[in-house]
């Protein structure tokens, strides 16, 4: 692709014997909102720091706008960062923080002030310009940090878990605000988070990372609905895990036997990968399970003991036990559940698992 703002070409990063990034390649398209999603230690922040120039890759090449920048120091890259803890300069006012970066673009003092006012107005903090930066709330600091980075009109804006220090409600609010800012400015965002919901809400594309690799790169619906690996399937979205063994191979599907004796049909998306006798893990999301009205009609039905019903407002979450020790969860709108389910606690119910909702992955292989 020609229009890659950032291109990482077979980048590796090692600290001593610790491999943080392992032969990672990534292209960030101009104007997109790309999220690096993964647990702590998966290499997402290191990837960000390699783009910004705070870390140098051990191997591989980093391109910004097609230009090799491995040897270019951070302060000469047209890339700006919103840091996790904002890193606002405590000895400066809000306005001084925001206009700070313009000093180095030879913008005259008065113009800097004007631009800072404009940028602060955009994030709704115009009246705070002469406040000391330490006198702000977390959400306000986050907005100032954003204004301070955006005023530089970067090629790419890097955001390192910028919302992780905020409470849930403010986080939701700022997610939408960030997304809107990104759309309006057209600036490329590379966003790092461990919060998969955040990633799903905001991103154009998501790169799911694990142990220095990108396990899957795609649109949110790809990642959520069509996971390519066991890791992605387990990591993105809540999921039930059912371990079993392939007992039969059909045209486009396999039959998997669970330890409880139940047999489930699952489509094979990666053909030829699974042979009879292979240990597999089936992944299915709680919201895809259904309580079967009567067991005769449907295929893929397992018998389970209803252990608990949790009230979640419009939804209910059912905790079920299949066989001796396998626990699964089912989530469904309350009005779609059979009536009087509450009286059936401790009794068996039939659970239908639509084959489409099942993902079979070979077990015990880290990819």
């Amino acid at each position, binding site marked *: 692709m020609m229009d890659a703002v950032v291109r990482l070409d077979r980048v590796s990063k090692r600290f001593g014997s610790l491999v943080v990034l392992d032969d990672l390649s990534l292209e960030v398209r101009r104007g997109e909102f790309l999220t690096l999603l993964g647990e702590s230690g998966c290499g997402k922040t290191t990837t960000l720091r390699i783009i910004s120039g705070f870390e140098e890759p051990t191997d591989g090449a980093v391109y910004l706008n097609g230009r090799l920048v491995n040897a270019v120091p951070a302060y000469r890259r047209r890339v700006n*960062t919103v840091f996790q803890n904002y*890193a606002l*300069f405590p000895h400066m006012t809000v306005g001084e923080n925001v206009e700070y970066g313009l000093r180095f*673009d030879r913008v005259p003092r008065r113009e800097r002030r004007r631009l800072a006012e404009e940028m602060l107005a955009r994030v709704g903090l115009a009246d705070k310009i002469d406040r000391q930066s330490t006198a702000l709330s977390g959400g306000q600091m986050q907005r100032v940090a954003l204004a301070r980075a955006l005023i530089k009109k970067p090629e790419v804006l890097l955001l390192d878990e910028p919302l992780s220090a905020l409470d849930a409600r403010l986080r939701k609010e700022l997610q939408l605000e960030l997304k809107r800012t990104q759309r309006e400015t057209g600036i490329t965002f590379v966003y790092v988070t461990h919060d998969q919901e955040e990633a799903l809400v905001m991103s154009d594309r998501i790169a799911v990372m694990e142990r220095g690799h990108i396990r899957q790169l795609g649109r949110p619906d790809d990642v959520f609905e069509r996971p390519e690996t066991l890791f992605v399937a387990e990591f993105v979205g809540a999921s039930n895990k059912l371990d079993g063994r392939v007992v039969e191979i059909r045209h486009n599907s396999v039959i998997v036997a669970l330890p409880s004796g139940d047999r489930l049909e699952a489509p094979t998306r990666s053909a030829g990968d699974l042979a009879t006798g292979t240990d597999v893990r089936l992944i299915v999301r709680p919201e895809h399970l259904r309580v079967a009205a009567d067991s005769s009609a449907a295929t893929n039905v397992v018998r389970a003991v209803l252990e608990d019903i949790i009230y979640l407002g419009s939804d209910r979450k059912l905790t079920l036990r299949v066989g001796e020790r396998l626990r699964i969860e089912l989530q469904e709108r309350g009005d779609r559940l059979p009536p009087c389910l509450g009286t059936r606690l401790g009794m068996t119910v039939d659970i239908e698992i639509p084959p489409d909702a099942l993902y079979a992955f070979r077990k015990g292989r880290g990819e």
Partner: protein
Amino acid sequence: MWQAKLQRHRIEIVCAIAAIGYLVVFIGLPYANVFAFSFWEKDLYTLRPALSPENYARAFTNDLYRQVILNSAEVATIVTLVSSVLGYLLAYYLAVYAERWRNLLFFLLIVPLWTSFLLRAYIWKIILGRNGILNSALTQAGVLDQPASFLLYNKFSISIALIYIFLPFVALPVYAALEKIPRGYVEASADLGSPPWATFWHVVFPLTVPGLAAGAMVVFCLSFGDFITPSLLGGTGDIMIANVIIAQFGAAYDWPFGSALAILVLLIVMLLVGLSVWIGRTVSRGRA
């Protein structure tokens, strides 16, 4: 009602009493005593309580004392400036570059503080003296034909010793200030396009100014009032004000005049310190 209040603020009250008590006993009373003495009169060998401005008049009109005070101020200023610069550099090196040598170097910086002040001043006699280490080395190496005598018993030797002694007083608070600066600030500055020197000037330095100022102030006050170093390492022309004051309380047996000089020194130092605090505040407000 007030009993409940008393109950609630018990610890505060205890602390306040302790602090006030300390200030009164160790600062207030001695200074009040010296202040009172400074108005007394001396008749040959007796001291008589009085309210006489005579001692102050004498200090102001006599050129000798003015010269000694200026001399002290000069030495204190040089010592403060040099130890600030060197102390800052040292602290910066320790905080930023030293890495695995940090603890060792830090230890070496602090160890001299455990030895006596007198010893630390005296050691320079051994280094700078006519048959001292430096002269021996230089004559051995053939740089000098005969030992140099200009090294010792002058302002140079006093200043060197005081700089050596007081360097940690600057380096330690600056180091503490540098340590407290999160790496995020430096990275944020670079991220916003600032070259390393500009990051130092706009971000790192302003955040260490309080530490530097505190250290420099202590150094200035202590070196202004020091008497051991000048009496060990100074020549006849380099008497500092503390030596004169000591002499008034000792040999001259003129406590009132000594007290007047002490009060004057106190006022001068307070004035200078106040001025530098004010300047520091104005500057940092104007620039930050």
